[in-house]
């Protein structure tokens, strides 16, 4: 199993007392499978994604990613897991502003020690980034930036791709084409995909869908 969650809960301290964001979540994901996570704003979608990526820790429950129990990993272990097996795509793109497109695409793969120039070249072409390789993030449109972010993630050939509203900052047409490209490339690499989205229309394009309401699976 690529990903397995059992009884995961998470709450945050607020001025008004603890706020339960996630309660008793169970879910799993197999290699090559895609799963969408929908829900309204504040339903805990992004928090769940961050817990799976090891960016945050749950209060209760177990999270196993790539057959590793997250609770047994320290900060370095979680970082190593992200570096080696997990790829993240964000709504805000989060490209590295000091690197040009070419260096941004290669960055994660090189960190993971799996840089494959031929694979990167193929990705570059299919993502339509060939003419933009020497541009910097600030010189790209939103759609172009998100394509670079997807390329950066896939260039490292992660086993698990976590995407948080990857088309949230794009118009509908651009969003659709970016998502279609991402789905086909993920399928090609055999990775599992967990995608957070507001849109039922987009969610329906994935293999399975889970809906969160008030921090619980509805």
């Amino acid at each position, binding site marked *: 199993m690529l990903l397995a969650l059992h009884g995961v809960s998470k709450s945050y301290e607020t001025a008004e007392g603890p706020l339960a964001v996630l309660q008793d979540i169970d879910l799993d994901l197999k290699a090559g499978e895609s799963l969408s996570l929908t829900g309204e704003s504040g339903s805990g979608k*992004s928090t769940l994604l961050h817990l799976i990526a090891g*960016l945050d820790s749950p209060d209760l429950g177990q999270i196993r990613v790539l057959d590793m129990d997250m609770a047994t990993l320290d900060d370095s272990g979680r970082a190593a897991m992200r570096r080696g097996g997990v790829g*993240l795509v964000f709504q805000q793109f989060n490209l590295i502003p000091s690197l040009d497109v070419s260096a941004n695409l290669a960055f994660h793969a090189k*960190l993971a020690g799996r840089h494959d120039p031929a694979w990167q070249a193929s990705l570059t072409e299919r993502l339509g980034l060939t003419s933009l390789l020497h541009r910097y993030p600030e010189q790209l449109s939103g759609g172009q930036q998100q394509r670079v972010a997807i390329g950066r993630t896939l260039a490292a050939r992660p086993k698990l791709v976590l995407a948080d509203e990857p088309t949230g900052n794009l118009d509908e047409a651009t969003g659709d084409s970016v998502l279609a490209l991402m789905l086909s490339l993920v399928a090609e690499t055999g990775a599992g995909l967990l995608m957070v989205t507001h849109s039922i229309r987009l969610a329906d394009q994935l293999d399975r869908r889970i809906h969160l309401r008030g921090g619980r699976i509805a």
Partner: protein
Amino acid sequence: MMWRAGLQALLSHWKRSPLQLAMLLLGLSLATALWSGVQAVNAQARASYDRAAATLGRDRLDQLVAADGNVFSQEVFVDLRRAGWLVSPVLEGDARFGTTRIHLIGIDPLTLPAEAQQVELSSNDDLISFMTPPGVMIVSEATAARLSGLDTPPLRISKDVPADTAIVDISAAQRLLGKPEQVSRLIVAPEQPLSQTPLADVAGTLVRKAPDGEGDLARLTDSFHLNLTAFGMLAFVVGLFIVYSAIGLAFEQRRPVFRTLRSLGFSAKALTGLLLAELLFFALVAGVAGVVLGYGIASLLLPDVAATLRGLYGADVPGVLSLRPSWWAAGVGIAVGGTLVSAAQSLWRVWHMPLLAPAQPRAWARASESALRIQALAALGLFGLTAALAHWGSGLVVGFSVLAAMLMGAALALPVLLAILLSLMQKQARGPLSFWFWADSRQQLPGLSLSLMALLLALAANVGVGTMVSSFRLTFTGWLDQRLAAELYITARTEDEAARLRTWLNPRVEAVLPIWNTEGDVRGQPAQIYGVANHATYRNNWPLLQSVPDVWDRVASGNSAIINEQLYRRDGLKLGDTLTLPGGWQTQIAGIYSDYGNPLAQVMVGVDALSQHYPEVSRLRYGVRLNPAKVPALREDLGRDFDLPPQNMVDQAAIKQTSLDIFEKTFAVTAVLNVLTLGVAGVAMFASLMTLSGMRLPQVAPLWAMGLTRRSLVWLELARTMVLAVLTMVAALPVGIGLAWVLLAIVNVEAFGWRLPMHLFPADWARLGGLSVLAALFAALIPLRRLARLAPTDLLKVFANER
């Protein structure tokens, strides 16, 4: 109401960024403090020179003096009075009371014009006790304390008399100075009778001299104060870097607020006005704090400055600060001026900001390629100006202009050089992290460049001034060893005792070398004229810079003289030139010697020639050559046989120590200012790093998400700061050495009249390099601690969609 709401919106930024506000106020206060501190010291010293220059109305009244600069007979005064001239005689000279040297000014209170009245002698009793033996010495409180217990005429204290000076009746001065019936000058009363015999007919040897507006001391010390002012200015500029950077950032961060205010009905004029009011308020607060701090700095510096001025120029400046309201106003004024200069660019941008400009804050101070190119061109232009001024210019102002152009050029060139270097490193990088490290460092450069420029200026000043001072110390120590060749220096109390001492010493020691001297005008400037014995001590040791082959024989024969470097440079003299000494005696220049620490012109002639031309010369001081091991025994014998007090027998080591103490004090102020400037640069660096740390999050969070630990990120951030500090230090070295060269070869020659060889001190640079890395480390510590302790939730905010 509208104004209040607008101001509230603008000020809310500072409430959320208190550290930024603290940095702005701190930068401005420090800049103002260093500037106004130096100004306070200068003002204090200048006020004291003015008091000295105003003695007996010298700054307002004409004087009659002998054309040859010598004293002249009192008969001339009598002749002039008979011919209808309203003049009053003055006799001046230095007298020793024990080991205390006092400048005596003898006056005739009955003929002294009212404009020249220095002290109150209103009652008859006062006048009688002043004029009749033993007379009265009117001195300042400090001088009275120094003379207490010594064999002097009765003392009276007056706050109007300069330090180390005594006003006595002219007859007492003639007696104490051993110049009976002699006069140094005549003060000319402003109102003269209509019918007067022309001066040439009565006193052909006298010339009329116009009032001395500035005074010798003020002129002599101008260079020293210019030095201090230059340092104060440098520190002020370094402080303004912090202010400029804090204002620039605050304006950029508030661009969305500005746009909102504009769209809500604020005109560009109203918005700029509000921002100006806000800045003026901050400037006033920081200005007052800076002036208070400046007062503290001035109090700290003044004792050392006073010691320096006394040691170097013989100028007496009280060690306690007294300040005028104008100084406070000027301090606050410079704070306001500095703020306006620093904010001018930002205000101009707000004024011209289009209403529909994007609300997203622009990348702050992003240096585009073209901006760097312009900066490089400006730096090249300034370097060209530096070279041109150094080659063709002359004078102290040009010297400082060379320094300013070179420093500004170097500061502008620094970001360009660093950008090139970091790009090269990026090209050489192999791994993804090192590639990112260099690329990211280059991207951080615009945000850090102001503080790095400030650090460069501070480090270059440290290297430059340190090299200058250490070169000076090395040369000075060697020079002292050469010049203070005698093992013991003895001062007799009377001429009679001196004669007995000579007879007593001759069979007991290797040589008794007279140190006889007189003073007078040489080439229109006050000079010391020393007699030198024909002895191997001088031939072997005296530090000659230039000389004719048989210099010592010629000096001994009385035909030639040697002069100090100051006189040689100041008057552009050369070997073989004829020199007219007081009394009209002419001699040829046979050599030039270095004479560090002496502001006056000095001439050395054969001791016999000196006695012959100046029979009244004081014969009290001697240098004694003997086996150093026998010095303590000789001192003991002298004490026993002559009852000579210890202070009249000074050994070589003690004189050297005193000279070195004076030397160290001379540069103590510079050292303090150096450290303060480096401190300000450290604060600038801290301010920049703190500011950047707040903006770094979106740049480092993706790396964390991609599998880098927070610890690695902290180490990388630290490494970047260290690399930039080290590169800045490396860049500061050639600039500092250039600065040292300008100080030694241009500024010192103009300021003091001597030129020193430059020595290099790599160990000092290594120490300074270590210090700068340490300063950078401390500056980076808090921002890095912040990053290390950042909760994952804060990093997650970067990825949050609702951000």
